[in-house]
């Protein structure tokens, strides 16, 4: 129906242009900015047309591109998209476009390379979300680390060496385990296609080990408690746009992997361990919220809050295991909640990191105690930031609420205590988000020693667009629901059928 390699274009256009930008050292700043802007806009248009052409009423894969790649090993260049991929592709394209706009008001040394790495990252993310061959997926998944490593390592803050190495080794450790699991599965299946893994009949012990490998691999990426400690460090050292892409899209790769690999492949082991995994998610939601409250650095606070919010994603995913067999409807609600939470957190955390970047630009400090009374000098900015903080605390009418609502509903479908513990986050997230607002935005400030100034037009545009989308997803997210609905229902049905 659609004979046009749109997925390949989505992947390779940004990667090639990005490589060109990285290699051509002497490109002027203006030129590279325009080039990045054009390419990201093009990718956004492509992904919009992808969404438009995506047939929501079908639950099978669409836009399939399948070419032999490494013959002897049965590895294919196999790209496709389902509802979950499409929604995440849209998020990636959108956030990268905003980064391109925002970056044009920033000054960095060697800017063309900086922007080039972001383009490469964008292409690799597209690849990760569309690869349906496990080796292809693994290659994209792993290469994601490189551009981000360079972005933080070259353009990062004072303590960047420690942060980058920690971040790199942490995630590498997890993905190596994942690679082992993939290779093991492929020897059984005789192919590397993810879909073939679904059909395998694994013994319980095999499933258990594979589940643990995936859990560690993706759990570090998301990150889950207790393997989350790389995230605050990486965020604090990363430049603003680096934090944005890290929080809003890179973390979602973990959630995406869990849905794609763990749910269908290791169902029985998942059911066996679901209780413990749910506990881990609840710890992430409650304990991390407490830790977030104690932070004195704005970026760390938001980084910890990201961990807490991603706790809802993992909770929604693991609840599926818990609910299989007794309440399938609640399982669907939970999984849809997890996906929507991913998208919404992508928007909200991006917005908050942009905001912090703007404050930092003026005051040169990210500490809570150095920033106060912003509202007096940047009223519009403060209004927007308060909005994002409210969204972060899950205010209804913003997208932050939708996912949490669905996940809590699903939790109540299995056990009221889980639901209650998850709902406590309503209070905790408000307490740390508003603490940030209370300390930074409000308060008396007559001197303005920080030199606050109202945002530039670029920043206004970026934040304004984010407000619109957060509100849109908060008020009428029906379109997003339509995109993911058939895919999730089909996924859960097939998992359930596979069991019986």
């Amino acid at each position, binding site marked *: 129906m659609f004979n046009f390699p749109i997925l390949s274009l989505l992947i390779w256009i940004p990667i090639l242009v990005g490589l060109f930008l990285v290699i051509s050292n002497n490109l002027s700043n203006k030129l590279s900015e325009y080039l990045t802007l054009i390419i990201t806009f093009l990718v956004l248009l492509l992904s919009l047309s992808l969404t438009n052409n995506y047939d929501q009423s079908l639950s099978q894969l669409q836009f399939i591109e399948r070419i032999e790649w490494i013959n002897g090993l049965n590895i294919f260049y196999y790209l496709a998209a389902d509802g979950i991929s499409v929604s995440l592709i849209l998020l990636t394209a959108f956030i990268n476009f905003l980064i391109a706009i925002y970056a044009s008001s920033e000054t960095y040394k060697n800017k063309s390379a900086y922007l080039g790495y972001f383009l490469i990252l964008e292409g690799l993310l597209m690849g990760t979300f569309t690869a349906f061959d496990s080796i292809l997926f693994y290659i994209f998944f792993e290469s994601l680390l490189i551009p981000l490593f360079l972005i933080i390592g070259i353009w990062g803050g004072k303590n960047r060496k420690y942060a980058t190495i920690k971040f790199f080794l942490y995630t590498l450790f997890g993905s190596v385990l994942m690679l082992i699991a993939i290779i093991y599965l492929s020897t059984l299946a005789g192919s590397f296609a993810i879909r073939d893994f679904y059909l395998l009949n694994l013994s319980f012990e095999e499933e258990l080990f594979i589940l643990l490998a995936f859990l560690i691999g993706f759990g570090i990426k998301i990150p889950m408690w207790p393997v989350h400690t790389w995230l605050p460090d990486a965020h604090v050292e990363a430049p603003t746009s680096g934090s944005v892409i890290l929080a809003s899209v890179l973390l979602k790769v973990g959630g995406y992997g869990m849905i794609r690999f763990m749910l269908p492949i290791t169902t029985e082991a998942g059911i066996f361990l679901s209780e413990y995994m749910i506990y881990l998610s609840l710890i992430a939601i409650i304990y991390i919220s407490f830790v977030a409250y104690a932070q004195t650095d704005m970026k760390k606070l938001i980084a910890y809050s990201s961990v807490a919010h991603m706790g809802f994603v993992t909770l929604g995913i693991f609840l599926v295991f818990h609910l299989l067999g007794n309440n399938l409807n609640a399982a669907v609600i939970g999984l849809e909640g997890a996906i929507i939470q991913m998208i919404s957190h992508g928007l909200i955390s991006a917005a908050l990191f942009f905001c912090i970047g703007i404050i930092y630009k003026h005051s040169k400090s990210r500490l809570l105690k150095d920033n106060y009374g912003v509202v007096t000098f940047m009223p519009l900015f403060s209004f927007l930031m308060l909005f994002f903080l409210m969204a972060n605390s899950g205010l*209804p009418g913003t997208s932050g609420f939708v996912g949490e609502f669905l996940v809590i*509903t*699903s939790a109540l479908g299995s056990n*009221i205590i889980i639901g209650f513990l998850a709902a406590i986050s309503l209070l905790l997230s408000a307490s740390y988000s*508003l603490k940030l607002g*209370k300390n930074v935005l409000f*308060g008396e400030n007559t001197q303005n020693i920080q030199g606050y100034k109202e945002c530039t037009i670029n920043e206004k545009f970026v934040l304004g667009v984010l407000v619109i989308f957060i509100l849109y997803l908060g008020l009428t*997210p029906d379109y997003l629901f339509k995109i993911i609905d058939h895919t999730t229902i089909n996924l859960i049905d097939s998992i359930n059928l596979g069991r019986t």
Partner: protein
Amino acid sequence: MIYLALILLLAPLVGTLLLLYTQNNSKRLSIFISNSSILISFFVSIYLLFLYFSCNYLPVSQDVLVFADTKLYSLSFGLYIDSLSLVMSTVVTSVSFLVHYYSISYMKDESSFNRFFIYTNFFTFSMLLIVLSNNFFQLFIGWELVGLSSYLLIGFWTSKESAIKANYKAFLVNRVGDIGLLLGLCLVFVTYGTTNYTEVFNLKDTINNSELDIFGTSFNLLSSICLLLFVGAMAKSAQVPLHFWLPDSMEGPTPISALIHAATMVTAGIYMVARLSPLYVLAEDVSIFILYVGSVTAFFLGLVSLVQNDIKRIIAYSTISQLGYMTAALGASLYSLAIFHLITHAFFKALLFLCAGSIIIKCHHEQDIRKIGGLRKFMPITYLAFLYASLSLIGFPLTSGFYSKEVIIDAIGYYNHTIPYTMLLAGIFITTLYTSKIFFKVFFGECTLHDRNEKENDKEMLVPLFILTAPSVFLGLFIFDSLLSGTLFGASLMSNTVVLDFYNNYVINSLYFFLHSFMTINFFILLIALIFSYYYYYKKSFNISIPNILSTILKNEYGFNNLSTKFIPKFQNLLTKYLWKNIDILTIDNGIINNTSLMFDKISNTVRKFQTGYIYHYSLTIISALILALLIIRIRY
């Protein structure tokens, strides 16, 4: 009809958006936009009310905007139009309009004048969202938006330290209640598969007997839902123990206090329980709980206001106490009586607050009643308005407050709820005392104004007082019979029989009730309290020393004051710091992660010593290894 209701709902929202857009324009424009949008809402609401009763419409429930419509479930925004929602929206819009009008003058010297109206318009919209909602989901959204706008309004003065603390606190306490409400909503959603009121009400009997298992103990599902929802109502309607945000919310501008206390925020909880009366009627154990929460609030928090000296705080505690009466009525399944008191209270409490605002502005933002006095001559109109509002508040016969409050107390007595009945009776005494305390201290005694030529406030501030006086005094009598006999709310409120039984056997009609009241114990308590306060506050003919312990307890507001300002923040700081420093940094990060890397560091430091860098060492190793290998092979084979 549905389009008109949409206009009613959306006019304040459109106003908000227009105001946002024209934020930097003139004051006059924003006054025009904000007031006219609320006025449109008000007129539409009145018209709809008229239409509803004159044409005998049936309740209408219609979805307007699809939120999510998937294969398994659907959520949407919708409107529910019946007598209850229309009466309520009329109350909300009328009080809101008067407060808006009043604010024009009250806020005229503020630098962020326009911002104020953005918030108030949004506040009204959020409340209407709750009132007109036809499903739990929208109810929750409105609920939180009300919380948001109150947060913004209480912290209106963004550089005032206490205001920022108060709005933070208010939002968080409300969030505690929201947890309950959200859980209730999710439980409804997951058990019924829908959140629409009508559909849930139709399905309610099917799960009436299903159980919910918590830690091995099973609870009735419906009761759990009702209880969880009521927790939300407790926070919003300031019931014990989630009441302590309300006195602090006085940090906002005074018109906002009027808005919060009278129409748009604290009534949400009462309204919700009444709206969901079909569910609450079935949950009898929860009803008993509600009854006791209400009466405890009415009595004990009324006591607190006796020792307060800030005029706004006294009225705030009085609001909490009056809300206690409404809650008690809800608990006794007297839903229409609770709504009745809600309506009359909305008007006379708004009046009280607006009077207080006038007084405060006249006294240059002095709120301590010990430093205010003798204003009767300077502010005759405010004086009269305050008098009528006070009479209504203490339930003086024939006023609105009399009808709505006495009827609750009598009905609770009629149904033999002895303990709540006693507490509510004692509440009359307390109400009278604190009301007359303000009244006598502020308007009589020595004049404290420096400028002897002060006059009444502007016209904009007086007109709302005039208008509000009418419903404060006469509305009760006007709707008493139709309300109690069930013609006003009809089927929108459950358990009409309970009220009807009481009405037919005890009240009979408003005139009879009025005459009969002189023979009841209520009236004697009122009389004694009036005489007592006349001599105590006005003549100062005797002095009572309250025991020290009692006054300390009351001054500390039963410890809630310390709890919320000292204990909880301190505990939270300690706990979070401990978790972060000791568990996150010391144990996980340093203990596990960094120690692992240190271990590798040590191992590789030991191993690297073998790399001497000399070629002959390497070659020696290679060759000796080779020889060794050859030897091994030689020996084994």
